[in-house]
């Protein structure tokens, strides 16, 4: 299945790049990098279905909840 996912991304990327009228190297590089990230995310989600979601501001939610409920007492 991992192979199929990667093949799908390679196919889409190949066809789309072929269809571009011009291929400036910066845009091609950014496109390939992002497509690679999308493929990596797909494979990771497939292999690790319970992958934890990053929550950079979760501590704020906990703090507000504690304050709302009476300062955690």
């Amino acid at each position, binding site marked *: 299945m991992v192979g199929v996912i990667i093949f799908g*991304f390679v196919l*889409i990327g190949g066809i*789309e790049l072929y269809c*571009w009228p011009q291929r400036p190297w*910066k*845009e091609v590089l*950014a*496109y390939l990098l*992002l*497509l690679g*990230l*999308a493929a990596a*995310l*797909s494979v*990771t*989600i*497939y292999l690790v*279905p319970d*992958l934890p*979601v990053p*929550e*950079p*501001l*979760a501590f*704020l*939610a906990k703090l*507000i909840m504690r304050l709302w409920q009476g300062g955690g007492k």
Partner: protein
Amino acid sequence: MKELIPTRQGIALVALFTIGNSFIYGMAPHAGRDLWLSFLLAAVIALPLITIYARLHSLTYGQTLSEALTQLFGKWPSRAVALGYSLFAWRLACLVVGDLTSFVQTTSLTQTPQIVVAAGFIILALWIVKYGTEVLARWSSIMIVIVVGIILGTLVLMWSEVSFEAFLPIMYDGFKPVILGAFQVLDFPLLEPVIFFWVLDALPEKKSSYKVFLIGSLMATSFLMIIATVSLSVLGADKYVSYYFPIFMATARIDVANFLTRMELVVGVTIALSGFLKIAVCVLVASKALAHALGFKDYRFLVTPVALSIVPGSQWFVQTIMGIVESATKIASPSDVFMEVVVPLLLWITAEIRISKQGENKAGKPNSI
């Protein structure tokens, strides 16, 4: 390249985006029978913030947000802000796709993998976003008539089931549930149009942004409030809170002379239409903001990877129907508050200060940054 959007189409775009996928859920469940009060309170709180969005757009009139941000904050801070909004829009798109696929799987296509439905929505969104904002705006100006017409027609057919006693007694549990409900409605979906900074590059007049943001948001708020209150009055407060999709269950009760039944299917179609628009707008914003963050002028070449990454993302953020409903009806999350309230306030204050300083330096008062 700036894409000109007529005011009427802009209003339709904001209204349909705000309605989006939100009306399938029991909005403001914390408030129970007082949800109408939560909606009114949320509208009152949202109004100044949405006016700030409009004011900020008006201050940067004649420029794209990318140009305005670069002038306001400089090159690298503006790129950081753009990256933040790109991630925010991407996450929102993932949640909306997750909502729609779960809804479809729960109500009709029970044996179909969610990824198939998600891929369908994403391919269509990718297609329309590549055509640009103008096509999206034209599409929404047509579809809003269909969505609002169908839903209002359905609500009229439900009228015989409506019981206003479901709203009594008023505020029996105090004001706290009303406030919690209002915060939930603010977070999802009333303040989500913040991402329209990135969509509305060019409006016909400087004052158009006020019409677009305020009329669009007020239309959507009224519409959502009517849907929620009618659903609650048909089902009763207890069932409204316990069902995953109250509007769907309420419309299932329509039975006109044993002839006009199964109207919930029509509601399903409208959810697909408005949800699709929301996904498309999120993909557009994620691509545009990312293009600015990476230093590119055109965004269209980024649409495919951004859109494709939303399919696995929709399976990542929430995985069960309970998790999805919990995520949709949660009270404001910190990241949402940061992107919907804190950042726009900072941008607005900075823009006002910059303009007043320019006004002091120049003889004539400038119209924009």
